[in-house]
């Protein structure tokens, strides 16, 4: 070609800058056919490629989400042991009906609820307080934020092991301090409430900073003029917090409550590692065995795959119920605001 494309591109005859289109006047019958075929291909391409592009997620979901879900449902209707997972014996709904009078299940459910409350409520209150403090102008605020997030970045296993040492009955630091103050030793692992409190404290330690950061982010999005006008109206700091900060944080609080509730219903690692017997029974008398732990004990320690599957599905249903309750409450709240 004689024209110098590198200096200036010639104006395209049609269709903008896109290359590759044969000029219309050069159309022969052959080319038209070819074009039609190509355009059919392109149409198919356009129609189906998006599916191909999103398919990795769905393939993964099929393999690791849907298949286990269905397989678990199927297994829950059978008597099946981990030693022979293909050897299933039909059991109907027995694995479900027996849950009704399985005192270990209900004990675990109660523990999950109480540990959930003991851990979530103080956690969110403390997170709110921390966020409020951090919202003031402080020297080295980034440092404090990083420090707050550090527990979240620590592995549960490492943290729990340290907590086990802290809460040790005979040689634990906490009992040592209590002893100095003149309080009797507390058996943090074997007594019901102390053990639940200890497990909750691991959860609180781990998640408070995370929630505080979420609150902090939401607080910083509150327009400054709201505070100014509140101050003009004579509101003190506390009143500002109650009447400006909290209402503005309502959706954020709701979010953290939902996330914490889901987290609390699945608590597993902390009680597992807190057990002095290193078993999955959550203490000698199952005093801090959660549902997640009970599921693990049935499935992996006792190798009853069918029973464990049924427990998993009941947990799933309980979660759905919690989700519905949550959404009803949040809708009410939104309506009332």
């Amino acid at each position, binding site marked *: 070609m004689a024209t110098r494309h590198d200096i200036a591109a010639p104006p395209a005859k049609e269709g903008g800058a896109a290359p590759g289109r044969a000029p219309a006047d050069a159309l022969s019958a052959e080319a038209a056919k070819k074009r039609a075929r190509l355009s059919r291909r392109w149409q198919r391409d356009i129609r189906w490629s*998006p599916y191909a592009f999103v398919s990795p997620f769905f393939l993964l979901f099929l393999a690791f989400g849907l298949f286990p879900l269905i397989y678990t449902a199927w297994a829950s209707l059978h008597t099946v042991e981990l030693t022979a997972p*293909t050897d299933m014996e039909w059991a109907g709904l027995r694995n479900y009906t027996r849950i009704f009078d399985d005192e270990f299940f209900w004990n675990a459910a109660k523990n999950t609820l109480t540990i959930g409350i003991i851990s979530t409520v103080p956690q969110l209150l403390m997170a709110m307080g921390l966020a409020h403090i951090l919202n003031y102008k402080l020297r080295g605020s980034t440092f404090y934020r990083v420090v707050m997030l550090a527990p979240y970045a620590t592995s549960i296993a490492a943290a729990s092991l340290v907590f086990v040492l802290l809460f040790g009955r005979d040689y634990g630091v906490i009992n040592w301090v209590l002893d100095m103050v003149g309080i009797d030793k507390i058996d943090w692992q074997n007594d019901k409430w102390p053990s639940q409190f200890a497990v909750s404290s691991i959860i609180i330690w781990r998640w408070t900073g995370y929630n505080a950061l979420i609150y902090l982010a939401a607080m910083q999005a509150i327009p400054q003029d709201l505070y100014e006008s509140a101050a003009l109206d004579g509101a003190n700091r506390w009143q500002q917090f109650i009447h400006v900060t909290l209402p503005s944080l309502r959706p954020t609080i709701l979010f953290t409550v939902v996330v914490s509730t889901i987290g609390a219903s699945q608590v597993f690692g902390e009680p597992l590692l807190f057990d002095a017997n290193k078993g999955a029974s959550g203490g*000698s008398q199952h005093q801090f065995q959660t549902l997640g732990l009970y599921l693990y004990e049935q499935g992996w320690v006792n190798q009853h795959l069918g029973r464990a599957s049924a427990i998993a599905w009941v947990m799933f249903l309980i979660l759905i119920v919690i989700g519905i309750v949550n959404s009803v409450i949040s809708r009410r709240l939104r309506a009332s605001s």
Partner: protein
Amino acid sequence: MRARTLPLSRLRSSGGNPVARRALAVAAVVSLGAGLLAGCADDGNDESDTSSGDSNGKTVITLGLFGTQGFKEAGLYSEYEKLNPKIKIQETVVERNENYYPALVNHLTTNSGLQDIQAVEVGNIAEVVQTQAAKLMDLSKVSGVQSSNWLDWKWKQATTKDNQTIGLGTDIGPMAICYRKDLFEKAGLPTDREEVSKLWAGDWEKYVQAGEEYQKKAPKGTTFVDSPGGMINAILSGESEKFYDSSGKVIYKTNPAVKKAFDLTAEAAEKGLTGNQTQFQPAWDTTIANSKFATVSCPPWMLGTIMGKSKPDSYGKWDVAAAPKAGNWGGTFLTVPKSGKHTEEAAKLVAWLTAPEQQAKLFAKQGSFPSAPAAYDLPQVTGAKNKMTGDAPIGTIFAEAAKQIPTQVIGPKDQIVQQGLTDNGVILVTQGKSPKEAWDNAVKTIDNNLEK
């Protein structure tokens, strides 16, 4: 279709051959998906591919082990590799059997992800023999393997009803009583191991009586027994029937031997003769370091545990006396899955590793006590000494105990029953519950755990 609303430039397909591009996309998706799916399904093949041989044309044999078996540490792999230049040995070790065993069961049932040789703990061997024998090689036919090389009960534990021996024993844990000479002396008890053995010879009740004697003048803050769990475990391990009868029925609830062991341990706990500890937990470790108990039921490997947790000032203060009744605690078997690529070579290696000479070497280096009686007369065993026990001839003491261990009926869920009786049972007595409450709690837990 949403796709039709794409911008015009996209519709005109700006650049690239669309066919090739689509093919590429499809290929990428398919290979990604297939690769991921295959990744979970076929890892066994991948692993056996890697074990088929390395670049030097050597045959690589892989071992899947748990805990510290010590083959490598005792130099046995390099010795075998020297003897067999065509063989290369690799091991994969999982620290705790609780994590190792469920994975092994999964691998066996799906026939994938298995190593050429897999170790099985004695607590699981009955379940493996009963449910997985079809997947494992019969090792009794391998050349050089003779059942008479092993203690009779050890050989039988890994043998199926139709006489296939699917695992060869490595070590065992014959139990004696390790005791603190200094604490015994302070409490006015004899310290010579012969006399100490006589205190309770043949009867665990005498052991409790000796404990009461000890506790009268015991140094403050010390107990006679380390933990209730260790004690009930020791008593039960000397019984020929504990949780299952020979027909495979669960009998732990009605077996008088089990109830007796439970009651005796609970009695000792109620009288304050046992520490309120669970074995192998950090707090229990600390009671070793602080010399808080006078006796512990100990297989040879327990001396290693004691040494690891002790302060140097208690070296040589321990001694070993015979237990009221000899029992076994712990031990491992090596099995060869049939699906491996080098089953012949693997079986040869297993036979070599479990031969008396190698077992004796392992004992000298690692303290794993041989399951082959022929090893008991080898100098590595007869001359064995331990830092904790001074010049006590521990090899001879444990060999004597090994010969008295009864052939015990073991069942597939022994571990669950055992754990229920200790962790959900006798330990509660040390926390102020009555023996009856403890027994009821244990039974409730065990029954729920056993029910399919």
